[in-house]
């Protein structure tokens, strides 16, 4: 399909509705009482049939969280969050154990169908993607388990991992993001309900791309998922994360923690397409996406690559980071952040170079339209032992319309003379010449804009796995709808 046809299709898909995932699935929910206190945490822990050590860990995290002040340094504005006015546990009511997909609530399956996840096993075989679908708080179905088990890969919900693989969980949980790391991470430790767990044993190349689809469904629930991925020596895994949320007037909080650990010669590729509900044109509603994502490149020659396409959420506040501890380890961060209407995004990365000859590369593309604000905030730190380390950073911002803002806030700290740090940033608007060229050839203004913006983001979009690249391109078009003319 030619690029032009594709763009036209994307825009057609967009005209159907501004946010096509804005439906609510009406199934009976089992929720904990509103509010946040020790009892709720005990309730969550009991519901998940967690061992005693886990409950203690949660309670300690809750204590830490209570003593912490809420941070306010990001370039985002929002009314104070009432942490007592939300449900911290919501699970679809169903049979306690599921043997196959047939037992899953058909209503739930239809929801996923609308989202376009090929949860159906047959389709899955064609797609070769294993989906650990998280519906609100409980992971309802995990496909492809058998095939993964054959390879020795553990891919399950984190609650299952706590029960089945406590030794791995205890060893790695909060080893990358400590409990007291930040306000939202501490909150997550106390109340997280589910998420994904991946362990790839030494020398194994994960036979398929792993994927989790997160979805916030219930009203007034925060989604606090917790993901832990461990790539043991010499292994490889590619993980895909996609998010959508229904349309609601209230603001919902999403405070996830994602921890990645890469040991010697291991590689993790983590891709995100974040399309939470961004609120309406006046900034009413939408998700607060306050996420802590961090990778530890512990081993020699380990590599972690973050790729993110951020188009949703009313407020995005996240910095997927790499701690480059092992000698010769590599960290990469590729990001496209698009904000429109009244969305606010404060996103970027941190690359902490500790080991010798560590390398990092940051490519960030920010696009602001409407009345939105888009900030790149990044840290590159070369510590004293980072002999021969290299960093290259490129941040480009594109402004569409004169009511939006684009900001670049890089922090560059170097304590090693042999380390080389390079940072470049530009800000510009969509070229009139390019627009004119497209318009002259009969391409409508919106299609032309989507085309140009897709070109602007090309460096990032091309590193996305196939499954996501197409969706991401579409999202670029949808997100910018109504920003010209």
């Amino acid at each position: 399909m030619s690029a032009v046809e594709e763009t036209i299709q994307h825009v057609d898909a967009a005209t159907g509705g501004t946010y096509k995932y804005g439906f609510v699935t009406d199934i009976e929910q089992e929720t904990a009482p509103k509010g946040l206190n020790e009892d709720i945490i005990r309730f969550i822990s009991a519901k998940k049939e967690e061992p005693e050590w886990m409950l203690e860990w949660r309670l300690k995290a809750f204590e830490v969280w209570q003593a912490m002040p809420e941070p306010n340094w990001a370039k985002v504005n929002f009314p104070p969050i009432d942490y007592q006015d939300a449900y911290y546990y919501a699970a679809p009511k169903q049979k306690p154990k599921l043997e196959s997909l047939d037992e899953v609530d058909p209503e739930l399956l239809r929801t996923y169908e609308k989202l376009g996840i090929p949860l159906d096993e047959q389709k899955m075989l064609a797609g070769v993607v294993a989906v650990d679908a998280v519906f609100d708080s409980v992971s309802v179905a995990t496909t492809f388990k058998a095939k993964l088990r054959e390879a020795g890969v553990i891919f399950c919900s984190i609650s299952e991992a706590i029960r089945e693989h406590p030794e791995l969980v205890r060893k790695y949980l909060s080893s990358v993001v400590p409990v007291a790391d930040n306000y939202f991470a501490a909150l997550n430790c106390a109340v997280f309900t589910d998420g994904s767990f991946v362990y790839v044993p030494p020398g194994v190349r994960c036979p398929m791309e792993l994927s989790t689809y997160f979805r916030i469904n219930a009203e007034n629930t925060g989604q606090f998922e917790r993901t832990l991925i461990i790539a043991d020596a010499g292994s490889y895994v590619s993980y895909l994360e996609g998010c959508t949320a229904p349309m609601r007037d209230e603001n919902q909080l999403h405070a996830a923690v994602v921890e990645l650990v890469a040991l010697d010669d291991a590689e993790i590729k983590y891709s995100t397409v974040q399309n939470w509900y961004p609120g309406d044109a006046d900034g009413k509603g939408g998700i607060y996406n306050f996420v802590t994502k961090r990778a530890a490149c512990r081993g020699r020659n380990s590599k972690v690559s973050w790729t993110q396409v951020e188009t949703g959420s009313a407020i995005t506040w996240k910095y997927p980071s790499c701690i480059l501890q092992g000698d010769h380890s590599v960290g990469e961060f590729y990001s496209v952040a698009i904000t429109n209407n009244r969305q606010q995004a404060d996103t970027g990365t941190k690359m902490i170079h500790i080991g010798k000859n560590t390398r990092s590369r940051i490519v960030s593309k920010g696009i602001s339209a409407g009345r939105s604000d888009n900030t790149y905030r990044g840290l590159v730190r070369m510590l004293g032992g980072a002999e021969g380390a290299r960093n290259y950073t490129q941040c480009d911002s594109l402004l569409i319309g004169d009511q939006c803002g684009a900001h670049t806030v890089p922090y560059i700290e170097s304590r090693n003379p042999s380390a080389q740090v390079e940072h470049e940033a530009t800000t510009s608007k969509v070229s009139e010449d390019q627009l004119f060229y497209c318009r002259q050839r009969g391409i409508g203004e919106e299609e032309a804009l989507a085309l140009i913006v897709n070109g602007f983001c090309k460096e990032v979009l091309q590193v996305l796995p196939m499954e996501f690249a197409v969706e991401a391109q579409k999202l670029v078009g949808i997100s910018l709808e109504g920003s010209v003319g």
Partner: protein
Amino acid sequence: MTDLATQAGDAAPLPFQAQLDAVAPTLPGAGQPWAATLRREARDRFRTLGLPHRKIEAWKYTDVRSLAKRDYRPAPQAADGLSDGLRAVLASDRQEAGRIVFVNGHLRRDLSQLEGLPDGVSAMALADTLEAGDRLVADRLGQLVSVDDRPFHALNTGMMADGLVLHLAPRVVLDVPLNVVFLTEAAGDAASMVCPRVLVVAEPGSQAVIVERHAGVDGAHYFSAPVFEVDVADGARIAHYKLQQEGDQATHLATILARIGRDATYDNFVLSVGAELARNEIVTRFTGRGGDCRLSGGYMARAKQHLDTTTRIEHAVPDCRSREVYKGVLDDRARGVFQGKIVVSRDAQRTDGYQMNRALLLSRNAEIDSKPELEIYADDVKCSHGATAGEIDSDALFYMRARGIDEQAARNLLIEAFVLEVLDEIADPAVREDFAEVVMHWLDGHRND
């Protein structure tokens, strides 16, 4: 930032508070109601802001808590005489339009040469204008660019006793440099402080080249908090070159503020080699179309020196240009900080902004922290920035070694080339030569290590 006072509150009692209150009634112009109000408001502001700490974003990389460790007292007036070391600073056979010398913050007429300034140029002691209730000073002092959150600007305003008021009448051209020199003598074993203040008012179409120098005695503990304010009216051009050569135990926390009018040009270069802890904070604001602002400089530090350059350029109106180029060389345990911010307001369309900071680390223990920042609210803009940090290029070194130049000589040549390049940003040839000499002198020190 709602309540900085409470954040700072857990520290010891606020330094300088007692001095501020004590000197207030004795300061020149204390009887003028407007001057009293200006100072009182500044005192209150300093009390509210407190001594900055690293939790405050603008002070993330520069720790000034050392100021609280000594009892800094206003430097005693040195009515005559000058120590030999400082006399050497004044030895210059350059052609100059005039020279104004301040010792310990007070004008020294015996060392200054103010005769022979062309008609339309008036240079006055701030103390005199405050006493006389000068209209110009009453209208403009502290009014050009409001900076409410800068504690050391507030401290200066609260304590300023003397300094320079320079007025350029419309279309007057002063093309040979006017030297403004601030010297600080040792005050025995006591720690002293000075708050010199300069106000330059360049009326429409006027031009001037100003060289500001700060020097002091090595080994003396003193704190200088100078404020330099310049009003560059429509079509005026001001070249402002600054040389910071404070004594090796000094703390120098300077604020430079410029308002740039329509089609006006403000050109600033700061060469920073002195002081143990120094910060140059520059804030410029465009108030008319077609303005041009160039901020550049070099910082060279060794031992445990800490040199900070913090700039903020506010593109508040359309069609203005700004350019920033800084280069630093850091040796031993020295630390360099660069924080540059370009703010482009909603209607400042067709803004052209460029910003670059390059640092060369010569030692394993040196450190550079850069934070080049863009905050942009207009869409038709061209803004870019860059930052690099690293050691001497090994390819260049190899190239020279291959041609028979020994490693030490090759290194020195490469460092020299790295720093001297930034001096090209200085338009005035005589000043460029003088500054190059300071750079070469610093490099000699490096070679002798």
